[in-house]
Structures are given as structure tokens and as C-alpha cells.
């Protein structure tokens, strides 16, 4: 009975503990601050952007940063600051929503497969194999043609691809947890499988999951850029950071500011996410409290 009590206590105080630990980690707090700030700016963009995002001035063309245009203009004479602000709305939305889709499906799938094992595991992992092998681009083209272009669909399509690796990672983690002493103890105490998954398995896999999530968000943002670049994602004049970078690369020798500013913005965001992710990982690790 002793063992269970300890774990129950750990389970219930996990989140409170985590918050206390997180608030002592300045880098993580800085990351959180940057993310919150970016979200606020994105929400307010239509009201605070200096120009309209499709406002062109062809005669102006691409100009370096100036007092009128702090981050310069693109070849259409559009203000880059405005473009980056609007692009952030799309990128952050794709990044968060598609990753959330991937996260939910991948974690559940991997945890169940790894925990139940046997035939269920075999079937579930073979489904993952099948999904891996399907020609992704044809799949997206078809989706776009059948359902029309739709930003929600883009989230789903990206999420549907990104969850696969997540599932594999969670599964291998769960399989190694399953045989650990505390899980066997919980079994012997007659807890239901679902309770064990929820209380012990999921919290203990949070570490690798969070690490992989912080890796997924950037790759989702870049995948969106790739799809949009192939003409399968969002349509101009709308934009996203990934797309701005993609265009920026083509003219990086002539107009470097078209690459630098979106690139810096994206990198800053990813660093912030990374610090936050690391902080969360450390804060949520049930074992670090023992140190």
C-alpha cells in the first residue's frame, strides 16, 4: 500500500511541482515570454501592422530597411514588417495546431501499441508502416483537389504525417517502461490498464515527447513552407514565415534582408520554444525531484 500512496501523491502534485520548478528556470521563462508576446502580436496584427499586407508599390520595388519601412520592402514594394507579422499568424497557427494533432494521435497510438503489445502492437505498428510508405505528395494533391484548398486540411494533412515518428518514439519508450518495477507494482495492485497508462506511462514518457514536440513544431512550419511553395498550401498574397524564407533564399545575394528578417524571426521563435520545451521536460520529469 505504501508504494501506491507515494505514486498517487506524485501524480497529483506533478503539475504544481512542475510550475514551481519552471518558474525558477529563467531561460524557460524567457522562452515562454517570447511565445506569449508573439501570440499577442499575431492576434493584434490587423490593428497594429504599419501597412496592408498586400499593399504594393511596384515603382518602389525591393528596398533595404529605412525609416518608412523598418525591415525593408520586397520586390513588389510591400512592407516586410507587415508581411512578417501576417506570416506569423499563419506559421504559428500551423505550427501549433498541426503539432497538436500529431501529438495527440502519436502519443495515444504509440502508448497503446507499446503498452498492450502482442498482436495489437503488431497491427498498429504495421498501420504506421503503411502510412509511412504512402506517396505523401500525391496524397496531398488529391486531398486538395477533392476537398478544395482549405487551411484546416493543411493542418490535418501535416498532422497526419508528423504523428508517425511520434508514435514510434512513444512506443519504444513505453515498451521499456512497461517492465520497470513501479509499473509492475501497479499491475500487482490490480489497477486497470487505462489507469496505469494515464497515471504512470504517460507522465513518464513526457520527457521524450516534449523534446520531440519542440522538434516537430519547426519541421511542421517548414513542411508548410514546402507545400505552399509547391502550390499546395496557402495562396498568395497571403504568406507565412516559411514561405517568406523560401522566397528570400532565391534572392539572398541581391536582397539579403528578405531572408534575414524572416529567418531571424523564425529562429527566435524556435529557440524560445526550445528553451520552454527543455524547461518543461526538466520540470515534468518525476525523477528529477529525487536529485
Amino acid at each position, binding site marked *: 500500500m505504501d508504494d501506491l500512496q507515494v505514486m498517487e501523491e506524485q501524480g497529483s502534485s506533478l503539475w504544481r511541482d512542475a510550475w514551481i520548478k519552471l518558474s525558477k528556470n529563467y531561460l524557460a521563462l524567457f522562452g515562454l515570454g517570447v511565445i506569449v508576446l508573439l501570440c499577442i502580436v499575431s492576434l493584434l496584427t490587423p490593428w497594429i501592422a504599419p501597412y496592408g499586407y498586400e499593399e504594393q508599390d*511596384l*515603382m518602389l520595388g525591393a528596398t533595404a530597411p529605412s525609416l518608412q519601412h523598418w525591415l525593408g520592402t520586397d*520586390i513588389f514594394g510591400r512592407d516586410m514588417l507587415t508581411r512578417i507579422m501576417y506570416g506569423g499568424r499563419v506559421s504559428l497557427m500551423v505550427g501549433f495546431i498541426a503539432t497538436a494533432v500529431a501529438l495527440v494521435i502519436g502519443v495515444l497510438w504509440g502508448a497503446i501499441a507499446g503498452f498492450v503489445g502482442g498482436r495489437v502492437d503488431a497491427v498498429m505498428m504495421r498501420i504506421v508502416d503503411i502510412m509511412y510508405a504512402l506517396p505523401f505528395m500525391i496524397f496531398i494533391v488529391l486531398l486538395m483537389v477533392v476537398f478544395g484548398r482549405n487551411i484546416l486540411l493543411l493542418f490535418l494533412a501535416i498532422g497526419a504525417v508528423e504523428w508517425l515518428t511520434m508514435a514510434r518514439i512513444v512506443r519504444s519508450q513505453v515498451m521499456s517502461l512497461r517492465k520497470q518495477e513501479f509499473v509492475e507494482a501497479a499491475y500487482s495492485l490490480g489497477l486497470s490498464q487505462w489507469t496505469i497508462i494515464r497515471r504512470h506511462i504517460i507522465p513518464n514518457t513526457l520527457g521524450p515527447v516534449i523534446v520531440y514536440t519542440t522538434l516537430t513544431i519547426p519541421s511542421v512550419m517548414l513542411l508548410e513552407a514546402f507545400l505552399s511553395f*509547391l502550390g499546395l498550401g496557402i*495562396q498568395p*498574397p497571403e504568406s507565412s514565415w516559411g514561405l517568406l524564407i523560401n522566397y528570400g533564399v532565391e534572392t539572398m*545575394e541581391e536582397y539579403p534582408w528578405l531572408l534575414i528578417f524572416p529567418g531571424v524571426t523564425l529562429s527566435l521563435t524556435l529557440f524560445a520554444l526550445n528553451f520552454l520545451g527543455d524547461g518543461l521536460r526538466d520540470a515534468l520529469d518525476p525523477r528529477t525531484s529525487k536529485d
Partner: protein
Amino acid sequence: MKPQVPVSTSSAFFTISLILLCSLLLGSCGSSENNVSKGNRTGTLHWGNGTEPQSLDPHIATGVPEHKIIVALMEGLVLKDSKTLEPRPGVAESWEISDDGRVYTFHLRDNARWSNGDPHNAHDYVWSWWRALQPALGNLYAYMYFSIENAKEYYEGEISDFEQVGVKALDDLTLQVTLKNPTPYFLQLLDHYSLYPVHQATVEKFGTADQRGTRWTYEGNIVGNGAFQLRDWKINRRVVVERNPYYWNADNVRLNEIVYYPTENAITEERMFRAGQLHYSGTVPADKIATYQSNNDPALRIDPYLGVYFYRINVETPQLQDKRVRRALGMTIDRDQLTERILKAGQIPAYAITPPGTMGYYPESDLRFDPEAARQLLADAGYPNGEGFPSTEILYNTSEGHRKLAVAIQQMWKKHLNIDVTLLNQEWKVYLNSVSMKDYQIGRAGWIGDYVDPNNFLDMFLCNGGNNRTGWCNPAYDKLILEDAAEAETHEQRLAIFTQAEKMLLADMPVIPIYIYTSNNLVDPSVKNFSGNILNQPSFSEIYLESDNGGQQ
């Protein structure tokens, strides 16, 4: 039970990896001469060629990259001058044209040979042209033959006897071609690869005459009659051709070899050129052109190109049925701004479909950039100040250049007409499908001339023209192109008829001309005798390499 990886295993792993990585790095160092200077020494031209060729069979191939390889391997009866495009003797050393302009008699050289040494004669042409007109072969350029008497009828199965088609070998060295109507551009067609001869014995060795996808065009198999012969073909890597010693004019060919690189990405190709890996690149990214121009770099060659960029309008779209609306759209595209600020490579604003100067033809057009009049037209059509005009969509196939233009035009229409336009890009095959099913409202299009004649541009918009795709149909227009122009007695009369037809087209505006293409080539200064022409057609038998600092082929 504790994990036991012996130290040796993991350190062995690292050691092996390091050794491998070092060998990768070391095996590669050592100074190397770049392709251009090496090529100048050995007479090898390094040519950036766009994409991987689909086929080197002249009766199957359709694209520009294929064209650039096939012209090195094969040759037609008549060549074109590399500057003026005037006909010049090729396999035929001379020819006569009958007074009614319908019968051409070609006298072939007696020293023309195939690249395996076989004699090359008039019968080869009869057989090759018969092959090109077999529907099973799937020759997309069969229409290039349709000026020949009964060629179209034979191709479409109305007659089954090839004897009735106007091609005859009078003897081994004399070929007689009879045309349906006098066709002023017929000699030009002979220099198009779809009319090139193929070597019968080789084709039949690897399959039947009308079979696609046989291996006769592979290295080691293919036999041609051009200045070069195929030596090596590595997919997605390179195609190498070398001098053909049996070519009738081999003594005057100065290149020893041409290496073609299939580079889909224009930016990569430009970098390869800059790093001295290529002598030639045929695509220059628009934003790079300004850099070359401001450096006064002699490598950049801009020449007019026989092609027009335009927007098709699906005239069955409700809000686009009224020609006043279509005219208003055409009048509010500021072409000067587009060509100067976005395209930047000297493209010419187009106010008519046919490029000016095509066989002495200068289209008359009343199309102008005139927002004031356009707003009036739109108001007359029931949309004053753009009010109530339904949102309209521009379709383009995914490409950076098309995107830029569409984004700018979208804004111009918004600004001058106050109408909302959305953009839709589709992947190439989906776009082709949408356009041919007329499942679009306004669609980007381009047309590159196959031969230099207004007919090649204007017959696109015949009622049942396969490339019309706008739903626009005007029987009077059809009559001008199909009957009046074909029967015109003088060149001037013929051009006057085209002028009249083109005015008709522009008044209804099922298509909005936007600009006339230019060819933008990067040519290394060591490449001599490279002449730009409006078909952007290189003449490899004339080009030679000579580096200015003394390196000599």
C-alpha cells in the same frame, strides 16, 4: 544483466566513422581545373540543359531540352541561318519551288551519310515521314506535316494509302514534296526536329516502326545524320555527344564534344555557370539579371524570343461573358511596370498575340493601358466602380515567375477597377486538366512559336482549335485564317488578312496579351560564334571555344 557494450565496440564505431569521413574529405581535395577552362582546352562544351530529356526520338520528343540535344544528333533537309533564320542548305544542297508554290524538289548531297557510315538518301525521308504520321507513335507534332498534301487525311485515317501523300523519292538523291496550298513557311518546317529523318534499320532493329519506347535512341544504338553522335546518356546526370566523322560538313565542325547537364533548378544552374562548371545556361533567374546588367557582364545575352505570355479568359464565366469586361481587364494591366519592375529582362509589353516582326508582320492593336476608359467600360457592363462584380480567380501553374505576375496583376485590377481577384495555383498536370476542361475563369498561358509565321499564333483561336480553350468562337475569324489567308496571292495580302483577324480577336479579347518573351542566356566569353535568334536555336556545328587568355582548342 547490466548493459555491456565493450569499450572497444563503441570506440571502434567512432574510429571507423572518422576514417570513413576523413577519406570522404581527403579523397576530394587536390586542386582541380574547372569545367570551362578544361573544356576550352579539350574542345568540350558544357551546356546547362534544363531538364532530363524524355526521349531523343525526334518523332516523339516535344520539349526544349530534347530539342537542344536532337539538333546536335540529327539534321533536316534544310537548315536555318543561325542569325537571320533564312533557309540554308542542309542535307539538301539545293531545291526548286514550282511557280504555283506547291511543289518543292530537293536535291540531296551525295556525301550525306548516317553516323554509322550508311548512305543517306531520299528514301529515308519518305520512310521517316511515313513513320511520323503513324497515329500509334503518338507524335504530338504531327500537325507540322499538315501543309503537305493529304498528310492530315492520312494521319486521321481518311485515306490509308501513303502513296497519295505528297512525298516522293524521284531517285536516290531527289525528293519531291507537294503541298496542299502554297505555304510560305514550309522550308522553315524542315528544320524542325519532327521532320528529321530517322535511320530505318536501327529503328526496326529495336522494334516496329510505330512502336514507342524502344531502345533505339540509347547510347550505342542510335544512328543519326547530324554533326554529333551520342556517346553517353546517364539519367539525371548528363548526356554526352561527340563529333560524327561521317557528317557531310564534319571538316567545319570545331567542337569535339558537348556535355548536356539536366538541371531543373534555374538557381542551381546559374550558380554552376558562375562557378565555371558550365559554358552556357539558358535560364537566368529574374532577380539575377539586374546584377549581371549592372556589372556589364558580357556573359548575359538577351534576345527577343518568338513567344507570347498571355491570360486566357473562359468566356463562359458569367461575369466574363461581356466583352467590355474583358477589354476593361486588358486595359488595366500596366505592362510597362510589369516588364520593368518584375520581369526585368527586356521583355516587350504585348498588346497583341502575335509578336511584332514575325515574317514582316506588325499587328495593329488599339489596346492601351487606360484605366479611365476601362472603368467606363466596366460601368457600361453594369459594374460601376466594380460594385457587384463577383470575385474572380486567376489560375496559374505553380512557378515563381507566374506567381509574381499574378500577384501584381491582382493588385492592378484591385486598384484600377476595384474588383476582387483571388489567385489559385495548381500543380502542372492539375492545371493542364483544369484548362482543357475549361474549369477556370482566367488562366495564365504562354505560346512559343514552332515556326516564324503569324499563322502559328493566330490559328490557336479557331473555333475547334485544340489550344483555344477559351470557349471563344467566331466563324468570320475562322474563315479569314483557314480560307482567305491560305489562298492569298501575295505576302502583303496574306499579312493584311492576318491583321484583320487579329483585330477581331483583340476586339473580343478572349485572351489578354501581356508580354513578348525574351531569351536570357548566360554564355561564357570563350564560346565563339554563338548567335542569338528569335527561336533561341543554337547551331552547334558553328560554335567553337577559344579562351581569351590564350587557351586554344
